[in-house]
C-alpha cells in the first residue's frame, strides 16, 4: 500500500493524461484490436514506410504537440493562453511559401532560408503579443484576440489573395517521409523540438524562472527575476513553435490555404495543455503532460473517425469526453473521491480488526 501511494505521488499531474490515454487504448482494444496493427507499405515514391492508425495518430498530432509545448510555457509564465496560434501559423506558412516561390528552383538552402524567415516573422508577431502582455499588462487572451481577428487576413494579404502551391521533393519529404526512413518526418521534428526543450531546461534555469514568474510575478521581480523579459521570451519561444508547426502544415499539403491551415488548432492546443494537468492560471508546468495531452486529443479524433463519425460531428463527441476528463480531474471531485476511499479503507480496517478479534 505504501509503495502504491508513492507511485501515485510520483505520477503527479501526469495521472490524468496517462489514464486518459490508457482508457482510449483499452477502449480501442475491445472495439477493434486491428486498430493497433502497424504495417509497412510502399508509398508513391517507392519508399517502404510505416502505416496504420497508430502512425496516423502520432503523425497527425505533430503540429498540435509542437504548439502545445510552446503554449505550456506561455500558460505557465503569463497565466493565460495565446488564442492566435492558428492565425500566426497561417502567417508563418505564408511567409515560408513566399520565400520558396521567390526563386526559380527550390534547393535545400532555399528551404532553410524560407524556414528562418518564417521563424523571424512568427517571432515578431510573438513579440508583439508578448509586449502587449508583459509591458502593457493586458490579459493574454485579450491581447492575442487582436491577432486572432486579423491574422488570417494578414496571411491572405501576404499572398495577395491566392493559394499558391509548392512542388518540390524536399517539401514533400518534410511533410511526408524522407526516402529510406520509414518514420514520418513530422514525428522526427517533434522529437527534435522536444529534445531541444529538454536541453534548454537542463542547461538554463528557464524552467524554474518561468514557474516563479507564473506563481507570483511581483515576488519573482523582487527576487531579481526580470518577469517582463521572461513573459516576452515565452511568447517568442511560442513564435518559433508556431513557425515550425506552420511549415509542417504547409509541407504536408504542398500549398498554403490561409483559411484552413491549422484551423481551430488554438482551442485544441489549450485543451492539450489543460489535459496535461497544467494549471491554466499559470505556475507549475510539465511539458511532457502537454505532449501526452496532444496525443490524447488526436487519438480521440482518430478513434471517432474509425467509428465512422463524420468529421463535422466529431466535435460533439469530443466535447463529452473532454467534460468527462475534466470532471474526473477537478479538485472537488478528487477530494470527494479521496474521502470515499478513506471511508472505505477505514471500514475495511475495522472489519479486519473485528476479524482478528
Amino acid at each position: 500500500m505504501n509503495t502504491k501511494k508513492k507511485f501515485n505521488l510520483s505520477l503527479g499531474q501526469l495521472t490524468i493524461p496517462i489514464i486518459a490515454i490508457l482508457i482510449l487504448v483499452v477502449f480501442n482494444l475491445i472495439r477493434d484490436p486491428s486498430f493497433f496493427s502497424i504495417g509497412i507499405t510502399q508509398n508513391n515514391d517507392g519508399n517502404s514506410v510505416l502505416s496504420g492508425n497508430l502512425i496516423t495518430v502520432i503523425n497527425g498530432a505533430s503540429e498540435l504537440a509542437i504548439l502545445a509545448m510552446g503554449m505550456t510555457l506561455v500558460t505557465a509564465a503569463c497565466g493565460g493562453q495565446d488564442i492566435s496560434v492558428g492565425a500566426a501559423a497561417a502567417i508563418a506558412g505564408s511567409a515560408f511559401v513566399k520565400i520558396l516561390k521567390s526563386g526559380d528552383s527550390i534547393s535545400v538552402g532555399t528551404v532553410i532560408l524560407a524556414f528562418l524567415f518564417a521563424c523571424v516573422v512568427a517571432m515578431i508577431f510573438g513579440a508583439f503579443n508578448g509586449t502587449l502582455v508583459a509591458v502593457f499588462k493586458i490579459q493574454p487572451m485579450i491581447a492575442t484576440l487582436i491577432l486572432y481577428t486579423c491574422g488570417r487576413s494578414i496571411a491572405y494579404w501576404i499572398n495577395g489573395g491566392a493559394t499558391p502551391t509548392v512542388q518540390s521533393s524536399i517539401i514533400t519529404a518534410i511533410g511526408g517521409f524522407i526516402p529510406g526512413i520509414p518514420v514520418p518526418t513530422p514525428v522526427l521534428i517533434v522529437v527534435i523540438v522536444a529534445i531541444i526543450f529538454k536541453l534548454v531546461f537542463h542547461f538554463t534555469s528557464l524552467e524554474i524562472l518561468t514557474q516563479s514568474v507564473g506563481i507570483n510575478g511581483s515576488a519573482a521581480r523582487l527576487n531579481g527575476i526580470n518577469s517582463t523579459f521572461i513573459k516576452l521570451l515565452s511568447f517568442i519561444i511560442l513564435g518559433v513553435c508556431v513557425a515550425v508547426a506552420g511549415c509542417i502544415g504547409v509541407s504536408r499539403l504542398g500549398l498554403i490555404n490561409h483559411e484552413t491551415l491549422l484551423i481551430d488548432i488554438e482551442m485544441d492546443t489549450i485543451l492539450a495543455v489543460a489535459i496535461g494537468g497544467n494549471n491554466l492560471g499559470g505556475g507549475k508546468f510539465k511539458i511532457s503532460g502537454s505532449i501526452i495531452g496532444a496525443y490524447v486529443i488526436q487519438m480521440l479524433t482518430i478513434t471517432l473517425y474509425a467509428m465512422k463519425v463524420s468529421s463535422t460531428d466529431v466535435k460533439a463527441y469530443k466535447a463529452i469526453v473532454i467534460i468527462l476528463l475534466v470532471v474526473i480531474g477537478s479538485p472537488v471531485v478528487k477530494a470527494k473521491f479521496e474521502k470515499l476511499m478513506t471511508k472505505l479503507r477505514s471500514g475495511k480496517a475495522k472489519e479486519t480488526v473485528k476479524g482478528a478479534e
Partner: protein
Amino acid sequence: MNNIVGKRREPLSDTKLLMTITISIFVAMYLLAMALLGGGFLHPQQIFDMLNDNASLIIVSCGLTIVMIGGGIDISVGAVTSLVVMSCVLYLNNGGNIFVAALLAIGIGLAFGLVHGYLISYLEIQPFIVTLAGMFFARGMTTILSVNPQKVTHEGFQSLRDVKIEISWLGYTAKNGNLVPARMELGVVIAFVCLIAVFILLKYLRLGRCFYAMGGNQQSALMLGINVKRTRFLSYLMSGCLSGISGFVFMMHTGAGNATNAAGMEMNAIAAAIIGGTLLTGGVGNVAGTFFGVLTLTTIKKIVVSSGLNDPWWQNITTGGMLCFFILLQSVVLSRRNGKKK
C-alpha cells in the same frame, strides 16, 4: 447594500471612464464618416441597419458582459446561438408553433447555462475549458441536426419575421419623391428589452452588485457574505439564457438555419465587451458600454466597406487594428490613473 456600493466606488469610476472614452470615440468616428463619406451615413436608416443586423450580437454581448464582470468567460455563446437557430428551424418546419419554439430556444440556452454554471462554480473547473467543450458540443450538435441549410417554411413565423416597425419621421425622401420610412425589426426591440433588463440588474439589483463584488475580489466578496458559488452559477445561467434568446432573434433576422450561423460570434462579442470597457479580470464593466462596443465594431466595418477598400482582408485587419488601439488605450489610461492614486 449601501455598504457594497460604497466599497465599489473606485472600480465603478473606472467603468464610467472607459465607457465615456468608447462613446466619444464612436460619436467622433460616426461624425467623421458622415463628413467624409456621406452617402448612407447621412440617413438614420444606417443606424437602424446596424441594429437590425446585430440585434443578436447585442443580446449575446450582454450575457457575456455579465459573465466577464463576474470574472469568468463564456466562449460558447455563438455556438449555442447557432444550435438554437437550427433546432428551432427544424421544429417549426415539422409543424410546431412559434410560442413553443421561443420556449425551446430559451430552454436550450438555459440547459447550456445550467451545465456550464454547475461545472464551473460547484466543481471548480476552469471556465475556458468548460465553455470550450460547450462550444464544441453545440457546434457538433448543429451539424448532427442538419448539415444542409434549412429555410423556415412556417407561415406564422414568416409573417412575424417580416414585421418591421416603421418610423416615418426618421425616413427620407427617395429620388422618385416617395417617403421611405426608417425600418426596424422586432428583434431590435427584444435586444433593447434585454439590454435595459441587464442594465437594471447590474446597476440597481442586489444580484448585479454581487457580480461586481465577486469579479473585483472573490475573497472579499466571500467575506461580505456573498454566496460566491451561487452568484457565479447564476451568471452563467443568465449568459446561457441570453444566448437562447439571441438564437431566436438571429432566426427572426435570417429566417434560415445553417451550420455556419453565428460563426465567430463569440469573439465579436468578447471584442464588443472589451471595446465597451469591460475587463476580462472582472469587476469593471457596463452593458451600455458593450452596446456602444457593438456599434463601434459595426461602424468600423461599414466605414471600411464604403471607403472602397473592397479587398476581403481589409475588414479584419482594420478591426484588429482598432481593437489593438482600444486595448492599448484602456491599459494606458488605467495604469496612469492607478499610478496617480498611489
